[in-house]
C-alpha cells in the first residue's frame, strides 16, 4: 500500500536540492551545509506551520532563503559588504571535505558571489532550481516584475563573467 511521504521523508528527499541552492547562495560548500543544517532544523521546529498538500519544497526554500538573508544582514553589520581579497581565494574551498568542488564549480560560485544578494537568489531559484517566475515571486513576496528585472540584471552580469563568448 502506498503511503504519502512523511514530512521527514519529504525533507530528506529535498536535501540534495537544498544543498544545491545553498551552494548557489553562499561562499563555500561548508557554509552551504551549515545553512542547510539551520534550514532543516528550523523546518522541523516549524513543522506545524506547513500545510500538508502544499509544496514542501517552496516552503523549505523560503525558510532557507530567509535564514540566509538574516545571516547576510548580521554579517554586513560586522564587516564590509564585499569579502576581503584574501577571502576571495577561499570561494568554493571546503575545509571539511564535505564536497570537493570542481574548478568549474569554484569559478561559477565565485561569479555568483559577485552578484548582489537580491539578484543571486533569483538567478539561483529560476536558472538553477528551475522554479517559475510566479513561484519565485510568491516565495520571495516580490512582484513578478521585480523578479523578472532582477533576473535580467543578474544573468546579464553572469554572462560577462562566465559565459563562453
Amino acid at each position, binding site marked *: 500500500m502506498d*503511503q504519502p511521504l*512523511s514530512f*521527514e*521523508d519529504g*525533507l*530528506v528527499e529535498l*536535501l*540534495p*536540492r537544498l*544543498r*544545491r541552492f545553498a*551552494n*548557489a547562495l553562499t561562499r563555500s*560548500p561548508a557554509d*552551504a*551545509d551549515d545553512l*542547510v*543544517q539551520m534550514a*532543516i*532544523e528550523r523546518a*522541523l521546529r516549524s513543522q506545524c506551520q506547513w500545510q500538508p498538500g502544499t509544496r514542501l519544497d517552496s516552503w523549505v526554500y523560503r525558510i532557507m532563503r530567509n535564514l540566509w538573508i538574516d545571516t547576510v544582514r548580521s554579517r554586513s553589520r560586522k564587516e564590509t559588504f564585499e569579502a576581503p581579497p584574501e577571502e576571495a581565494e577561499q570561494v568554493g574551498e571546503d575545509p571539511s571535505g*564535505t*564536497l570537493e*568542488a*570542481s574548478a*568549474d*564549480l569554484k569559478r*561559477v560560485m565565485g561569479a555568483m558571489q559577485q552578484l548582489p544578494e537580491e539578484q543571486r537568489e533569483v*538567478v539561483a531559484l*529560476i*536558472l*538553477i532550481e*528551475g522554479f*517559475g*517566475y510566479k513561484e519565485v515571486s510568491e516565495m520571495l513576496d516580490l512582484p513578478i*516584475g521585480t523578479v*523578472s*528585472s532582477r*533576473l*535580467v540584471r543578474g*544573468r546579464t552580469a*553572469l*554572462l560577462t563573467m*562566465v*559565459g*563562453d*563568448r
Partner: protein
Amino acid sequence: MSPDEKFFAWLDGELSGAEAAEMEAKVAADPELGHLAEQHRALGGKLKSVFDQVAEAPVPKHLIETVRPPAQVIDFQAAKNAREPRRSWPAAAQWAAMAATLVLGFFAGTFTPRYDNAPVKVQDGAIYASASLNQALSSELASAPASGPVRIGLTYRDQTGAICRTFTEAKSSGLACRNGAGWQLRGLFPAPEGQADAYRMAAGMDSNLAALVDSSIAGDPFDPAQEKAARRQGWK
C-alpha cells in the same frame, strides 16, 4: 515588462500563445538576438550542470540524521538530549530499587509494587508495564522527542510475532513485549554503578539488554515508518 525582460521571459518559457510566437519570430529575424538567446541558453545549461554536481554528490550523514535520527535508540537519544532539557522522573528512586532487586526475577509472582503509580504491575504471575511506562511504550516513538522520562529505543517483532520495545529511563533500561492489551516485561536492568544519569549512557545499550534483544529478535528493528505504522495498528 521591458523588451529585455520579455525576451528573457520567452527564453525561460514564461510567455505563451501570441506573445511567445511574436518573440520567437522576432528572435528568428534578428541574428543578434538569436546569438544572445544562444549565449544565455548556454549560460543556463552551464549553471545547471555545474550546480548539479552538488545535488548529485552524496548528502552528508549529519544532515540526513538531523531529519531522520537513526533507529538505534542510543545515538538518537544523545542527539535529542542535546536539544531538549531533561525531565526528571518523579519517582526515580522506585526504578533504582526495582531495577536492583528485580533483575530477571519476574515470574515468581510474589512481587507487589507498593506504589500506586509504580511503573510495573503484577498480573497473572507476570509483570506488566503500568502508569508512565505503559503510557510511553504505547504512545512514544523513538523517532519523536519523548514527552516523559521514558525513552523508547528499538522496536521489533520477536520470534513469536509479538512487538517488543526497549526503553530507558534515568536509572535503568529494559525490554517489554506486547501481550494482549499490555506490555509484559521481559527484562529490566539497572544503570551501571556511578552512572547517575542514564540518559548519558549514550555509549551503548546495556549488554544484558542487547543480549536479550539479540536472542529474541526476528528480522530487523523497525524503521521510523514501521514504528509509526505499528502504533497506528495498536501494536498488533
